[in-house]
């Protein structure tokens, strides 16, 4: 008997004889709230998680975003080559700079100092104020991982009410990485004092496209 067989031998002896696995009935997922409510709830929860939410007319949002990025000392705007919406936003921000554009070779190499990473989110969750970004279809996760500031582009139609809805898409075959991002990287490991930017982005921004 190999180690695995022996484990299952022990487990079956310990928990067996109690009938078949019941599983659990699926959670009663709340009926889909109207889009306006979902978006408003997401905005509230994302802000509560420490994120910065920008919405409204794109021109005004871009100007605000440019100001935030300058205040954070951001010099480079980093977007995945295959993410058209992220590219468009990053390019539109250049006049608010001085910013340079990059698709990532140097960021990947580890020189990610003072950069903002842009990416289109796959979904957002109203319940928790979460932005969902995955590796599905060969997409990169680096903009939300190693940049100092992360800008998620969230189409309003992609906001779902609860976590179950965001996961339902993936239960058949999840990609390697499904990430729930809720606000900036945080730590309270020193004297219980909440501090941002432990490892991931110091600032998490969601740009809501309505």
């Amino acid at each position, binding site marked *: 008997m190999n180690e695995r067989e022996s484990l299952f031998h022990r487990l079956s002896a310990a928990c067996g004889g109690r009938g078949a696995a019941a599983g659990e009935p699926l959670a009663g997922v709340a009926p889909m709230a109207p889009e306006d409510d979902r978006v408003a709830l997401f905005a509230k929860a994302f802000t509560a998680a420490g994120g910065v939410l920008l919405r409204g007319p794109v021109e005004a949002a871009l100007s605000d975003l440019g100001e935030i990025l300058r205040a954070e000392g951001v010099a480079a705007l980093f977007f995945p080559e295959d993410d058209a919406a992220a590219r468009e936003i990053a390019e539109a921000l250049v006049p608010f700079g001085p910013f340079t554009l990059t698709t990532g070779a140097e960021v990947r190499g580890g020189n990610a100092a003072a950069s903002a990473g842009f990416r289109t989110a796959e979904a957002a969750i109203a319940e928790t104020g979460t932005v969902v970004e995955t590796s599905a279809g060969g997409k990169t996760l680096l903009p939300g991982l190693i940049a100092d500031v992360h800008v998620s582009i969230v189409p309003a139609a992609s906001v779902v009410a609860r976590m179950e809805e965001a996961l339902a898409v993936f239960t058949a075959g999840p990609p390697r*990485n499904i990430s729930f991002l809720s606000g900036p990287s945080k730590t309270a490991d020193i004297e219980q004092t909440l501090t941002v930017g432990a490892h991931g982005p110091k600032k998490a921004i969601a740009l809501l496209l309505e």
Partner: protein
Amino acid sequence: MELNANSFGRNARKALQDKTLQEALGRTTGRFVAHRDAAVAAFPEFEATRERASRIKRDVLDHLDTYLARFIEEAEKRGAIVHVARDAVQAREIAARIARDEGVTLAVKSKSMAAEEISFNEALQEAGVTVVESDLGEFIIQLAGEAPSHIIAPAVHKTREEISRLFERHLGEPRTGSIPELVGMARKHLRAKFLSAGMGVSGGNFLAADTGSVVLVTNEGNGRMGTILPRVHLAVVGIEKVIPRLADLPTFLRLLPRSTSGQTISSYVSILTGTRRAGDPEGPERMHILLLDCGRSAILEGKYREILKCIRCAACLNACPVYQSVGGHAYGWVYSGPIGAVLTPLLVGLPEAAALPDASTLCGACADVCPVKIPLPDFLLELRSDAREQGLKTPGEIAAMKGYAGVMKRAGLLEAIERIAGVLGQLFTKGKGIGGLPYPFSGWTERRDFPAPAAQPFRRRWKIKRGVTR
């Protein structure tokens, strides 16, 4: 991790005299409790979610063989390599072999209590691999050469001054009293490690059986970084962490961060399934999952099986008056607080940790806050009784308890003793209370007087009040 649980009494005395620790505990546990209570109050579905989570976990324990087999099958289907270890020795061998076979010299690790259980770091170091802790609290503890004192906040006992001294000595950083600066120093140092490490090591908060996914919940983003950047990902996880389906995950995510820190959700939840796919620009080429039995299947067989429902939130630690007073090190192993007082004896054997079930006032606060409804006070009491049956109590203690039980079972005898005690007590203490008792009773009277027995026992007064005279 070295086991020192039976020295709880000595450890606790030391902890009570440690000024820095007492300050840190005072500052932290109260805040954790307040945040948790506020988050629960703001979430009306908490009770229903808790009940649901408890039922799911019970179903998992009833069918752990089925769910675990499914998990392994799905994970392997997606490219992961699954290993199982019967005990810590075997787990260490497997971990070292994985590192050697993968040609790893530097590993970055995020927090994993399971890895602590098997002394993972030592095993890899013996195999010539440098292991860097990437959770800020664990990193600080690693620099200090200590063991973590809290499931969630391992450096809870360290002040910023102590941490700055550590960073000066080990990282060559200038001294600072600024916490953001300290965090920035660790970030810079650890970022370089993430980018050069061959292997990222993680624990696992949940294993989804229907998809073969390992789920990690973190606030710092270290778990995320260590499972995306390095070439190899190794997850070290206890077999009881399985949940039936990915669709069950939200239930647990609604409980864990709220119970731990009062957050609605942690900053990062990573759901990791298999290796990187063709066309993925990053992600590990190899994924190993090391599943630990290490005493769990034996627990599953017995009357304490519900302890395996634990999701390691640490709410019971923060709520426990004993933990609040002595902190985590006193418990002498990986797990502390009420969960440690039950789990440690079950995992390492009661004779090795018989002192721990006594480290409780049985106040019940732990059961009140447990998000998966583990009956911790019942288990503590039951373990005390097991300890007696196994002859792990001193003859004096057994005799005292036998005597106590004998009296408590006979109402007449109790009443007679109460009356005599009342008369003698008033006579000798003149109503002032008892002080300065000799050993072994000195513990009761060292710092305060023991109240003198009342002239008229309560039960007597009750009877008179109700008009029963005899």
